């Protein structure tokens, strides 16, 4: 593949996989939120907060997309820096591809986060006092996405 394909794939997979995972995560937690609110509308506030947690992975994906674009010269002017299909350019564009894939794959943590948030919505509906604890449980899944973003930034900065 040409270097441009790797870079473009890195940008697309980073934002795409993380975004898709976020939508699944929000979907799972959102279904639970709908169930909780159907029984008692007082559950709305707590359910909404828990439902929104898996959205952050898509933001990390978007940040990565911009960072890769800027590192490769696609965003910010100057043109694509690795257009020549030399070994060095292939490696550099592969590194950018890896950074995107890293954020995309760690962004999949949005799905289990949605599952945890979904169980959390149920638990909070039963006992609202457990809201903070359930928020923490769901937020734990975020750690992997943050590690992924940090790793991607390190990779991009290594160029």
């Amino acid at each position, binding site marked *: *593949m040409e270097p441009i394909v*790797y870079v473009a*794939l890195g940008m697309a997979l980073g934002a795409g*996989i993380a975004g898709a*995972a976020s939508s*699944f995560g929000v*979907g*799972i*937690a959102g*279904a*639970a*939120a*709908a*169930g*909780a609110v*159907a*029984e*008692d509308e007082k*559950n709305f506030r707590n*359910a909404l907060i828990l439902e929104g947690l898996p959205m952050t992975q898509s933001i990390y994906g978007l940040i990565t997309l911009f960072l890769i674009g800027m590192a490769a010269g696609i965003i910010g002017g100057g043109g694509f820096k690795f257009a020549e*299909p*030399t*070994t060095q350019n*292939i*490696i550099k564009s*592969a590194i950018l*591809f890896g950074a995107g*894939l890293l954020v995309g*794959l760690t962004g*999949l943590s949005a*799905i*289990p986060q949605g*599952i945890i948030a*979904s*169980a959390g*919505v*149920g*638990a909070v*509906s*039963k*006992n609202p006092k457990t809201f903070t604890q359930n928020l923490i449980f769901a937020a734990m899944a975020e750690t992997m996405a943050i590690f992924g973003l940090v790793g991607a930034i390190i990779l991009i900065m290594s160029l």
Partner: protein
Amino acid sequence: MEVSTITAILDTTLGVVLTFVAYKTGQIIWKYTPYSYPNARIRAMEARLLSDQRIEELAESKNLQNFVVNLEDSDYGERLTSIEKVNLKNIELALELSLVDLLELMVKIMPKRVKGFFELLLEEWDVRNISNIVKAKLSNLPAQDYIIPAGRMYQKVKAMIEAKTMEELLVILEGTEYEEPLRKLLLKEISLEEFELELYRLHYQKLLNYATSRRGEEKTILLEFVRLLIDQKNISSVLRAKSASMPSEEIKKLIIEGGSLSKVTLDAMINAEDPIMAIGELEGTKYGEIIREVREDIEQGRLDTVEIALRKFMIARMKELAQFYPLSVAVALAYILEREREIRKLKAVAKLLSDGIRAEKIKQIVGEVA
């Protein structure tokens, strides 16, 4: 390394990683997503289960009218407020129908792959109605008074009430699985008790078949649920038969296959000298601990405490499974069992109120029946 080699390695890795991730992600989504909505809804319903304090307040209702008014804001409100004439029979019926409503709600909201189980649970009202109609007809009593307007074949049940002869009942049940037991009863091949047991046997067998046909944790949970139900029924039947000094051969006919108790344990219980010895055979099984707790009551001849202890054990086990699998069918099953227990308590309160029992005594008795 050649450029083509690098790109080949990268492309292959990408293909493998993405395929694996897509497969695993799909599996997780398929497994948990369908339970997201129903389980959150059930958890919210759990928050409305009546507390002990609320039950005690109900015990102070003084009469059935107040009892109904006090429950207006609960999950029973809709059914209770639609009662035309407030009396014990109508209140019991309304409470029973609220459980039917709950199962019908489960059929609507549970994932397709398990909703059939809740449809089968609704068939228990068919079994009860058919059994009660046959018993009423054989005793020349008005069958209408003994049925609950619920179940999957309520239309047939209504037709059965109108039937003039037992043969007509057979014609109405033609083509259903209940036809054969009724035919045997009419030919006097089996007794009325055996007929009733045969209906329950068919019902449990259907539940068992459904549970066995599921996969993964759904199979585990549903099988455990049905096995606990069968065990409960078998232990209760054996103890009651023993206390009535029924011969072992007769007791054997009462056993429903498919429970978790081994044949050896059940045979030992059946051949035991008395209920206390029979219950002793449960030592070493999962029921050992709960049976020890009610041993004194059994020695005093109170077999109902064993049934209460078994029901409590079943609820505890389902709640345990619901904690272990928070997005599974266990949550719904545990909630249904809890609502059943709550309804039992409410029926007891209503009965005691209608008998004019003092509030303090009601609180004490209701605590025991739970």
